[in-house]
């Protein structure tokens, strides 16, 4: 721990620096509303995709139902803040959303992880997310198929930025901890991991629940920032577009997820004028990447300050 304080401090400085950089750019006027919107969307997508990457890339369980948890967070925020329109209400709603997502993820996880894996698990999680959406679609409190609108906007880019930093810190630290190694062991070989005394179901479930909780946070931000939500926002398409970010960046690389979310976010804004053609381009890119680079852009490479300084240190010495 002692030897790591340098890196912890530099990461902290980077995060604070990033905050002030964006702040300054907004003050100067380089970042207008349009770009700010794009940045917030990218931030929310990073929260979603890092959570899904934990489930798919690190614990090796294929989930196609990430949008379901996002819907839970979004609807919790929408319903609560419409009745309690204050910062405190937003925090309460986020807490409720995360709690609900954790409970539901635990139920889905315990039901499915014990017996299912691979494509069957994917299709079961997809089904579970569709059940969540179908229920939301038919309840009165959620506004049915029309959804909810006039949700008070209680979050702006600093909220998204802070939560994005917090979730990233939690997820990356979780992956690098002892528990994270247990999860990666399950991914590599379940039977061998079990033989080493790892409770495989427990750790798969832990990754799934943590991923679901971060998705709920992203959902809360999404609802509060965009102010309108409807069940159709959280369908299979949404789950797949989160999956595309994860796969494009590299399954098992958090850095890759960051890069992919930023690239796709910028591309999305740039291609805005193409309308329907945008989705066609998306689909073709997805297929081509899978055929020519199945491991994604960055494979499982991770950016780390430690390796960077070591690398430069070596160069100076030689």
């Amino acid at each position, binding site marked *: 721990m002692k030897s790591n304080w340098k890196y912890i401090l530099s990461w902290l400085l980077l995060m604070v620096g990033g905050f002030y950089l964006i702040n300054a750019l907004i003050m100067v006027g380089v970042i207008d509303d349009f770009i700010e919107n794009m940045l917030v969307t990218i931030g929310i997508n990073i929260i979603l995709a890092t959570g899904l990457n934990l489930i*798919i890339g690190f614990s090796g369980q*294929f989930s196609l139902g990430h949008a379901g948890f996002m819907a839970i967070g979004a609807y919790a925020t929408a319903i609560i803040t419409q009745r309690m329109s204050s910062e405190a209400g937003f925090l309460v709603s986020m807490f409720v959303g995360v709690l609900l997502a954790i409970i539901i993820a635990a139920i889905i996880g315990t*039901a*499915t992880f014990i*017996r*299912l894996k*691979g*494509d*069957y698990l*994917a*299709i*079961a999680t*997809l*089904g*579970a997310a*569709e*059940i969540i959406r*179908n*229920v939301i*679609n*038919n309840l009165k409190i959620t506004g049915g198929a029309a959804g909810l609108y006039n949700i008070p906007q209680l979050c702006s880019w600093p909220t998204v930025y802070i939560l994005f930093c917090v979730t990233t810190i939690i997820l990356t630290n979780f992956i690098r901890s002892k528990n994270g190694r247990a999860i990666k062991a399950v991914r590599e070989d379940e*039977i061998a991991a079990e033989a080493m005394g790892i409770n495989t179901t427990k750790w798969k479930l832990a990754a799934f629940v943590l991923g679901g909780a971060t998705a709920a946070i992203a959902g809360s931000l999404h609802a509060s920032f965009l102010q309108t939500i409807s069940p159709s926002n959280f369908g*299979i398409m949404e789950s*797949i577009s989160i*999956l595309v970010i994860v*796969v494009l960046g590299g*399954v098992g690389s958090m850095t890759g997820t960051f890069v992919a979310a930023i690239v796709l976010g910028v591309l999305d804004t740039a291609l805005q004028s193409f309308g*329907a*053609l945008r*989705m*066609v381009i*998306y*689909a*073709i890119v*997805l*297929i081509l990447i*899978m*055929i020519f680079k*199945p491991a994604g852009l960055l494979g499982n490479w991770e950016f780390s300050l430690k390796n960077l300084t070591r690398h430069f240190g070596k160069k100076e010495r030689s």
Partner: protein
Amino acid sequence: MQTVLQQIINALSLGSIYALLALGYSMVYGIINLINFAHGDIYMLGAFFAYYVINVWHFNFITALLSAMIIGAVSGVVIEYFAYRPLRKSPRIAVLITAIGVSFLLENGMSYFVGSNARSFPQVIEQVNYNIGGVQISNVQILILVTALILMVSLQLIIQKTKMGRAMRAVSVDPAAAELVGVNVNHTISFTFALGSALAGAAGILIGMYYNQIDPLMGMTPGIKAFVAAVLGGIGSVPGASLGGFLIGILETFFQSIGLSAYKDAVVYLVLIVILLFLPAGIFGKNTKEKV
């Protein structure tokens, strides 16, 4: 009693369409272990092609059906050749994501070219309602049921009696061993895709006649439901997939008739999860044990 009979008839005609779709899923999964997400979209392509030939070239039912099947078979083989074959040795998640990508491409490509609005399917045969003891049966329903049954029986004959069918069964048991005894694995897989996709094309024109409406996203939900049907019946088994399709049709019609039609999708997914948990091999499937 009459309403029950009426619902059973509705359920059978809807179920036979699901069954046709489920057969394609089942065969493809049985042979290369891939959930072919694009299968539902081939059914959409079949429906749109039938719409086109009926409206523009004034085809009758039989020729429209055959042309939809041919277009289905061709697109299935092309998709397999370009999207799935290069990934034969890749991890399964990569192939599955490619399948999702192909599905996405077909849906959005179609929306881009023809617009995403629903359009009404031309009446290829004039609808006549028969009233048998208070139960309404239309000739369209009979036609759907009969066509589906003929196709299912011929599929079963192809798989059980022909040389290609034997090759398909061999590849699905063990591709490497099949190759050793002289089966051309790639041809066999292409043939499987052609057969399954032809059935999806047929299902497309039948659903167009049943609902009188088609749109580019029509394949998504029925596709997943048909996969549920295939899992329910036992993946890789032809009678299983047919039975599963009919069961899903009955289940859906039942929930619609007791006034819970808003929840019918949720019920299908719930059935899927329960089946996967308690009967992972389906009704006709074989249980396999994992060896260390």
